[in-house]
Each structure stands twice: as C-alpha cells, then as structure tokens.
C-alpha cells in the first residue's frame, strides 16, 4: 500500500515537473505521453520501444481499449482530460471524435508521404487526424479447414455466395466493427445500393456466424472453427506470420483505408504527442510496421524497399490501382442506416435467411441435373424477395431517417419504430421466399 502511494506520488511529481519542462522549452518533449488505442500489444510494444529509443526522456503510456470504449472514454473524461493521443484503425471513430470537437488540429512535418493511397486521402483534410498505415479488406481462410471440407479458394465476394461455402463464412457485425462497416460500404459503393445489398445478402445466406468484435473473425478462422472470414488484411497477414495455416486474398471490389492517429483536445503533454506523430510518420517509425507481428502497409512508399518481395505494396501493385474510389461523405451520411439495415435484415434474421438460402442451393443443384423453367422462375422470384430492400438509396441518406438514429433535438420517428418496421419487412419477405423456394424445389425434382 505504502509502495503504491509512493509510486503514485512519484509519477504525479514526475508528470508535474514534466509539464513545467514543456512550458519552459516547448520543443524538447519529455515526460509521460498517454495514448488510448485499440491496437494489440503485438503492435504497440515494438512501436513503444522504438519511439522511446528515438525520443529519450519520453515514456509512452498505452491505454488499451476497444475503439468504441475508447471513444466513449475520451468523451466522458473531456472535462479533465488526461489523454494525449487517440490511435486506432477505423476512420469513422476519428470522424466521431472530430465532430464532438475532441481532437486538436496539427500539421505533421514528415515528408515523403503522398496525399492519397489508392483513392483514399491519407490525412484528414482539416488536419485533425493522420493516416500512418494502410489496410485493405478481403477474404481470409484456413487451409486445413478448406482441405478437410473440400472448399475451393475464394477469389471474390460473389464466390462466397456459392453453395459450396454454405455455413462456412464468418463476418463481424458492421455496427460493432468499424473495419467491417467499411467493407460493407465498399461493396455498396462499388456495386451500387441494390446490387451491393444483393451480393451481401447472398453471401449472408452462407454465414456461419456474425461476431460482435472484429478480432472474433480471425480468431475463429485461426483456430479452425470457421473456414472463411471477411477481414482486414493485417489480421490475416500477422496470423500467417505467426505460423497459422491461413491464406488471404484481396477481392476485385475493395479499397485501402488508412489507420489513424490524432491528438486529443487539450492534451496534457502536447509536445510529446506531436513527437509521437512525427515518429510514426518518419521512416524509422514506418519500418516498424513491417515487423511480422504487425504487418501493416506503410504510407511512405520508400519504406517498401525494406520489405520482402511478397509484401503487398499498394503504391505499385496493380490490384490496388484498380480499387474503387471510396466516398467518405456518402459513407458518413448513411452509417447508422447501413449498420442497422445489416443488423435487422441479416444479423437478427440469420436463421430465416440461411433457411431459404439452403433450399435455393438445393434447387440449383437439382436444376443443374435437369433444367426446369418453372422451377427456375420460382427460384428467381424467391431471390427477388430476398434481395428486396425496405429503403432506397436516397432515403438511406435522407435527413428524416438520419434523425431517427441521432437521438437529436428534433422529434420524429423513433429508432425502435424504424427497426421494427425493417425487421418485419425482412421476416415477411424471407418467409414468402421460403415458400417459393420450396415450390421451386418440388417442381425441380
């Protein structure tokens, strides 16, 4: 007890003297700099070590929280803020913080970093947060599982909708995982609202599970509980580097998005916070990203010279050049609607959706053996019922619908009402589709 108190007093003294020091000589960072991050120890430890070596006298204090908890934490403690930096993948978390005026603008001095990666701007145009590593979305699978279950190698999103993948695919809920949200939004922007949802629902009919945290998907694929997962690249790349029998592919419709860092409003140790950002963006900091346990894509193209030949390079690899332009504003305007649609039409109706999908797979198998136009027509009707949406693209970004989700000052439809409406829309359509699909199966046999 005494020890703890002494230690507490010592740290307090230290940080107090540190803040005096920063007032005296603004350019020499020292003392403790606190960062709230969603990154795992495997990422933070090597970076912490390298940073403390590069900036002697500074200690990096890492507070590990998942992205949502981190945002809530910064928000709840803003009256007496003790955090210097926020450091996480999902750009939308930074958008939320920026919107709540919880970030400080800064202009990094680091050079050699281009403005865009793929078609995505690396830094926030207003200078509130900065990309330090890039990540793309794709499909990861367990090799042993695939061999045992005779699964082919998936190449694109549509492959995951094939009958052979039934009950083998896993995804995190986009409402819970910022990275999955971007994956869904990428598909919607790449294929269009209607077609995008059709692809997503067709894949979803094959889902084994929808996990509530991003890492749940790679964890399940790593241990072989699920065969295929829709994940962000570094989950797969770092698992490979750790020796797990997994593989990864970037599908044709995807995008690279930067992982970010930003200074929290009213930071206790601003000089050291800036020093950390400069370090992350410097060549030394960028090289740390290549370590096997981290495996993220540096945003400084020059650093790739130090990486192996098989390391994906978004600046030269033609696959990345084909990637679609991602419209951040469009995504931002309909975030809540897209996430809620996914949950109400898919997550919470998964059993019904899987039931129809299974029957439709059987119809396809029967039709392959013996064509039957009537059965085909019925199956198409069922597919149309599944693909139907309660909301058009224009409605999705409409202010009325957004208001239902912001809990804002204006009266209007309550979120619960909207959700109940969508849920019953999906339930009824899936039930009708099931009937059609069963008729089709009877006709086909």
């Amino acid at each position: 007890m005494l020890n703890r108190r002494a230690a507490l007093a010592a740290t307090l003294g230290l940080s107090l003297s540190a803040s005096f020091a920063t007032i005296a000589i603004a350019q020499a960072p020292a003392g403790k700099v606190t960062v709230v991050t969603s990154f795992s120890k495997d990422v933070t430890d090597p970076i912490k070590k390298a940073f403390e070596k590069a900036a002697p006298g500074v200690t990096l204090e890492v507070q590990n929280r998942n992205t949502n908890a981190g945002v809530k934490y910064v928000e709840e403690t803003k009256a007496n803020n003790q955090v210097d930096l926020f450091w996480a993948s999902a750009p939308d978390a930074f958008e939320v913080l920026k919107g709540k005026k919880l970030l400080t603008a800064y202009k990094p001095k680091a050079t050699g970093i281009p403005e865009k990666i793929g078609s995505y701007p690396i830094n926030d145009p207003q200078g509130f947060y900065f990309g330090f590593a890039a990540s793309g979305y794709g499909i990861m699978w367990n090799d042993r599982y695939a061999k045992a279950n005779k699964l082919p190698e998936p190449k694109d999103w549509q492959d995951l909708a094939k009958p052979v993948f039934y009950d083998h695919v896993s995804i995190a809920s986009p409402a819970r995982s910022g990275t999955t949200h971007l994956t869904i939004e990428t598909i919607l922007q790449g294929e269009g609202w209607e077609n995008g949802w059709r692809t997503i629902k067709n894949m979803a009919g094959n889902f084994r599970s929808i996990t509530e945290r991003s890492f749940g998907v790679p964890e399940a694929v790593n241990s072989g509980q699920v065969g295929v997962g829709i994940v962000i690249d570094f989950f797969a790349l770092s698992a490979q580097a750790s020796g797990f029998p997994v593989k990864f592919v970037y599908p044709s419709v995807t995008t690279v998005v930067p992982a970010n860092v930003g200074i929290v409003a009213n930071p206790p140790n601003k000089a050291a916070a800036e020093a950390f950002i400069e370090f992350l963006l410097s060549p030394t900091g960028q090289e740390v990203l290549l370590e096997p346990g981290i495996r993220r894509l540096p945003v400084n193209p020059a650093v790739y010279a130090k990486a192996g030949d098989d390391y994906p390079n978004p600046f030269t690899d033609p696959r990345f050049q084909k990637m679609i332009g991602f419209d951040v504003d469009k995504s931002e305007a309909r975030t809540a609607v897209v996430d809620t649609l996914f949950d109400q039409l898919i997550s919470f109706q998964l059993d019904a959706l899987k039931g129809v999908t299974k029957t439709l797979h059987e119809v396809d198998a029967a039709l392959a053996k013996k064509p039957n136009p009537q059965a085909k027509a019925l199956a198409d009707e069922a597919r149309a019922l599944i693909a139907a949406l309660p909301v058009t693209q224009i409605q999705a970004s409409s202010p009325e619908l957004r208001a239902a989700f912001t809990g804002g000052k204006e009266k209007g439809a309550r979120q619960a009402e909207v959700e109940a409406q969508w849920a019953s829309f999906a339930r009824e359509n899936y039930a009708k589709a099931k009937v059609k699909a069963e008729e089709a199966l009877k006709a086909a046999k």
Partner: protein
Amino acid sequence: MTAIPTSAPRARRLAATPGQIALALAIAAFLLMFLVLPVATVIYVAFTEKGTSNFTLVNFYDFFRTELFMRSLWNSFYVSAMSVVWASVFALPLAYLTTRFVFRGAAIVQTLGFLPLIMPPFVGAVAMQLFFGRNGSINLLLDDWFGFKIDFMEGLNGVIFVQSVHYFPFILINLSAALRNIDRAMEEAAQNLGSSGFRLFRRIVFPLAMPGYLAGASLVFVKVFDDLATPLLLNVKDMLAPQAYLRVTSIGIADPMGYVISVVLIVASVTAMWLSARALKGRDYATTQRGGGGLAKREMTRWEAVLGYGTVFLILALVLAPHMGLLLLSFATIWSYSPLPDAFTLAHYGRVFGESSVYIKNTLIYATLAGGIDIVLGVAIAYLVLRTKLIGREWLDWMATAALAIPGVVLGIGYLRTFYGVTLPDGTPLASLWITIVLALAIRRLPYALRACYAALQQISVSLEEAAENLGATKSRTVRRIVVPLMAGGILAGFVTSFSTAAVELSATLMLVQSNSDAPLAYGLYVFMQSAAGRGPGAALGVVAVLLVAACTFISHLIIERSQKAKGMGH
C-alpha cells in the same frame, strides 16, 4: 453500541436500535453513491422522450412491441431456467458426496469444482471452442471415428451447456456451506425414527439446506439472465443481455433501447430474487445446537466408494475440460483444426513472466479489497433484513442485488461520469485512482457475497442471540461473538465467490483502467487476446489467473475444514 435491552425478546425484535438505523443509513448512502447514482446518470435516457428529454414510457411500449426483444426476453428466461436445472445436476452430487461422506480429498474436489467459475475472459472462450466447438478436439475425433458431430456449442442449447458448466459452482459452494451448517441432531432424530438413505436426504437434509441451495440457484438464474459474455461468444444475439450490450456500446447510436433493456434486466433480476425470498418465507431453517459441527460423515462401502468417486471424477472431467484446453493452449505453438496442438513450447510463459507480476499484485489487492468490502456489506445487509424490522430494509437487499443486472460497461461509464469531474487537490480526477476499480468490482460482486451471508444467517436460530443478550451482551457484542462466528462458513463462501469472480472481471475494469501499472490480470489478458501472436501468451496469463484464484480458494477450504474439526466434529 446501545444499552442492554430490557424489553421482552419478541417485542425487542420489532424495533431497531439507533445503531442499526445508522448502519442501515450508512449502507444506503454507500449504495446510492456508488451504485444508484452512477447508473442513474446513464440509464435515465430510458425514460426520456426523443428530442425533448421529457419523461415518457413510450420506449417501454416500443420494447414490448418489438418481436426481436420479446423473442430475446423469452430466450433469456428459457436459458436461465434450464441452466439452473443442469447446474443443479452438476452441483448436487459434488456437494452431497463431499459433505455427507468421509471423502478423501474433499477440499481438492471443492476447489476443483469451484474453478469453472473462474473462466478468464476471451481466452477461456477460445479454449472452450478448441475443445467443444464445431471443429474442436472432441468433434474432430468423433467425426474421424464415427462420422458425426455433436453441437455442444450451438444456439440456445450451447448457451445452456456453457452457462451451467460455468456457473454451477454458485450452487456447489452455497449448498456445501448449508449442508455443513445442518445440525446433526436433526438427522439423528430422523434416523431414530427410522428414516434413512434417499428418504432421509429428500425429507430432512435437503429441505434443511434449502436456503443455501436457493441462494445458489437464484444466483445462477439471475447471473445467466444477465450474462452477456457467453451468448456473445457463441454468437447468440437474441437474448436480452447481449441486446443491451450491443446497443449500449455501438458508436453513434444515441438510442434509448439499450437502457430500456437494462431496466428490464434489473426488474427481472430483482423479481427473481424476491421470488426466491418468498419461497423461503414463513419457514424456519434455523437450528439451535451448533456443537455438532454439521452432518455426521459416513464411511462409504466399497461399491459406494467406486460409484461416488466415479461420479465425482466424471463431473469434474466435464466441467474442467475448458481449463484443460486452456492449459494445452498455453503450451501450444499452433493449434488449428486439429485435436491437439502441432507442438508444445514454454515460450508463452517466458513472454508473460516479466509483466505478469504487476498484474498479479494488482489483482490480489483489488479482488481482496472488493471481497472484503462485499462480505462486510453482505453481513450487515443480511443482518438488517433478517434480524430487524426496519422499514424498507428489503430495499437494501434489492438495491444490492440489482447490481447483478447492470452491464459492467454501464457501471464503468457511470463512474466516469460521476467521479471524473471530482478532482483531488492536485488535479487528478477521482475516477483515475485505482480505488475506483476496487469500488466498481465490489459493487458488481456484492450480490454473490450477500446471498451467501443471507443464507448463512437464515440457518442460525435467533434464540442463540437472545440467549447472549439475556446474559447481558450488547447487540454489537452479540453480532461479533455469536453471529459472525456461526456464519463463518457462509461468509467465507461469499468472500471466495466475490474474490475469485472479481479477479477475472473485465467489462467495468476496461473502462476504468488508467495505466498499465494499475491494471489487473484480466486487462492484461484482453491486451494480449487482440492478435494472433498474443493467443499463447494470453492463455499463459489465463492459467496464471486460474492458478492464483485456485490457490486462494484451496486455502480457504482448508480453513473451513479446520474450523469444522475445531468445532469438535467427530465422525
């Protein structure tokens, strides 16, 4: 505390002494400050109208109209009830055999039977999937040998399976404490009247142990009802607690429904506790003579012994399988889609060795303090509720019990909201001190200790206290010298439950931990379990946590046994 009461015993019990009133007020103040107020700052949203923040009940109307929530409510009830049934099936033989017979290694069995309660977050889930999952060891072997698989961990039945394995120790520990408290004279009287065997157990022993059983069973029910970790790990979302959690923690959704569900959870939990209290009302479970030291322990015949040890071994093998998985995982290099890991290594322990000492120290300090606070409050509340006629005394019980139903993240946010603005003279926020974590843990685990203390006190006859007071002891002296010593077994049971579950708590802790040097083991685990390379070290840390709590539990069982022997338990 007060003068010696002069009125007749019955009349005296109707009034409360000023000391008791002060105590009740102090506890009420503590609960208001650290439970009701912080939680209220978060969940008042449930009662406000969208856009106006006027009071409304329309959100509850929405709740009862939504098919998903109604389905979730029903599923939660079903899963909780079935979990109680299965938990009883696991717990009854273990409790009965180890307390009723001369059973070698009873303390070890009690300790091992307690371990399932300590399932470290995340890594425990992974271990369980690797063992029981669709492609876990057992199913891979079954598929290989016989060509079929068993869905241990699918859907609602999976949740029931995991929950009853996880929480049956609540019944085990409370029932064992109750069985030890039964006066041997009762049993002897029944035997003299010709009762024996199963009839003796059914008509005499079990009914007398009812307070302990119900304490455990109601905890299992409420805990399963309010638990979100297990359903989420099995990807079952249509239950109430996961629904609340999913809504509360999603970014950008300022939606009252999450808090509405929290309120429903609280009401359901308190109702369940109230019903279990009703079930015991109007009956007397107290026995007077305390010299006997519990049930007579019988020697088993040879066949009984084979059967007894066999049953215990089977149950332990089933409920400890996840821990075996955890142990394997901590030594495994790569374990993926195979019955056993590819190879074994000690490297993971090497990696956590350096940093775990600070986690271990913090965990011990936090959990011990939290457990200590819990039994002090637990004894006090149980005493006030059972031994005084204070108006509204049950509210203390219900308030404390409601803590079970509050998602940890809600409590964490509430603490930040309430205490972060309060600063020490040097500007440090109150909420950033580690003592806040202790308080949050104490509040979250209070219901466990409270139920154990409550059951223990129910078994003590009030005439013993009256005797002491008639002999001139003051109320506080009576409590100190008579009540607390007689409750010792129950208090210890409560402490162990609170302590060990506090040691692996994560959800509130994750909100409140301010620096690595103040972090408990569970936080260290969380940090590791976010990456593929961290799985092994995370498992190693999980094993450390389990061993730590097991050691503490084992020591307290030895203490119980010794105190029973000291009471002159012949056999």
